[in-house]
């Protein structure tokens, strides 16, 4: 009888401890906020005269058939695009809305005079875990003209984080596609096993994202119809960024999970981007995170907590701006 009582006590206590531990893990994963460091000042070393002389970016440029001179002045910003919603001497943004695959897709076409206007920002200006804010709030604090959600680095414990020329996380997760944005404005998709984060910065990488997968490389679709993020096998809201030509980009966000918009598979997104004429395109965090903010206004219909239209808080954004 005594042994039975002991067993009951032991079973009760161990199960209770297991439940408490599980609750702690859930809180650590989703709630407990840890700021590791304040965002550093941008490292503009890559924009020196040596910028863009790395092999990767050169090969990316030559793949685009470009012998163009890599200089800010080479980029001609458009002035006559009827969809132009913003234009100054360094940045031009045109917004177009498409309806494909039963889904509303928002495309912001961006022309820059220099890649230093293609920036990123952290929630609360802090690199950390569970440090989040809405895309529109981060965009507002950053003075963004156009912003989309980033790769939600804070949801993962590995994967390079290079932002504005500064390395924040230097351990990658094997097999993950990394989008490198070089100081010369070129995009290249690489793998964390190929170079260290510091080597990437030394070779001129200005931003690096670890989400993926790469959608389009050298103008060809690089995902198949069964490729998915994790084990998502359904259409979803999506966010992607692509390069059409030198300092000419598209920021793409699709709706999904609503009666009006079904959402896109990665293959559909890649096909759409290819038709837009991108040479390189990369998938960023999607689902409820997918948000596009233009001049302070949320353009798409972000869904959080099911099909409710509401912005989700994220770790980081990609934006264009001068501040």
């Amino acid at each position: 009888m005594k042994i039975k009582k002991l067993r009951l006590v032991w079973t009760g206590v161990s199960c209770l401890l297991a439940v408490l531990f599980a609750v702690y893990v859930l809180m650590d994963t989703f709630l407990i906020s840890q700021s590791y460091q304040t965002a550093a000042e941008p490292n503009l070393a890559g924009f020196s005269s040596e910028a863009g002389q790395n092999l990767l970016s050169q090969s990316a440029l030559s793949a685009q058939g470009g012998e163009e001179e890599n200089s800010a002045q080479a980029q001609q910003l458009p002035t006559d695009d009827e969809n132009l919603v913003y234009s100054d001497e360094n940045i031009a943004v045109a917004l177009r809305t498409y309806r494909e695959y039963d889904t509303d897709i928002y495309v912001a076409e961006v022309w820059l005079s220099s890649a230093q206007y293609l920036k990123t920002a952290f929630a609360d200006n802090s690199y950390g875990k569970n440090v989040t804010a809405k895309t529109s709030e981060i965009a507002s604090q950053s003075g963004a003209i156009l912003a989309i959600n980033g790769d939600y680095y804070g949801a993962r414990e590995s994967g390079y984080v290079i932002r504005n020329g500064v390395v924040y996380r230097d351990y990658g997760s094997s097999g993950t596609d990394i989008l490198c944005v070089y100081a010369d404005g070129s995009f290249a998709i690489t793998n964390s096993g190929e170079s260290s984060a510091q080597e990437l910065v030394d070779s001129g990488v200005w931003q690096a994202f670890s989400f993926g997968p790469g959608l389009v490389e050298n103008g060809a679709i690089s995902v198949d119809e069964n490729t998915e993020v994790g084990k998502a096998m359904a259409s979803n809201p999506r966010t992607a960024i692509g390069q059409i030509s030198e300092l000419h980009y598209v920021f793409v966000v699709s709706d999904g999970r609503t009666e009006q918009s079904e959402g896109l598979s990665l293959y559909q997104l890649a096909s759409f981007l290819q038709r837009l004429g991108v040479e390189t395109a990369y998938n960023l965090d999607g689902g409820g995170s997918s948000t596009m903010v233009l001049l302070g206004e949320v353009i798409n219909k972000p869904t959080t907590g099911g099909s409710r239209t509401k912005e989700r808080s994220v770790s980081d954004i990609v934006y264009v701006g001068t501040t």
Partner: protein
Amino acid sequence: MYTSERLNRQRLLHSHGLGLLFAAALVALFGAVYEQFSFGVWSFWMVYAFAPLLLGGIWLLVLPKRKSVPGELFLGLLEPGLVMLTLGMLLAGVVEIYGTENRLLPVLPTAGGLLVLAAGIVRGAGACRKQPRAGAGQPAGGA
């Protein structure tokens, strides 16, 4: 082992086995409902979280029919182990479906796996031990 004690243990294992099968059904239902609201994102851990409880339940239902019936130590190791394994798998499923990570995720499945392994060893040792003849006045021990 006295016949009445053996019968009590058989009944105990039987009722615990049925309890584990019922818990497995609840976990399977939870997993199915969770997957339903996951927008097509699925996780191996969530889908199969019911498996440890199901296998444990079947084990407990089969054991009373064997010659050597395990005792309190075996149950005291097996059931917390199964609970930890199941909780660990559900946790991993939730985290994976959300698309995030946590370095602490392996802790519960590892602890649970070790406890179930220990229960298996206790059971194995008990089964191998020579059983005293009935009426010898020597009740069987823990395992």
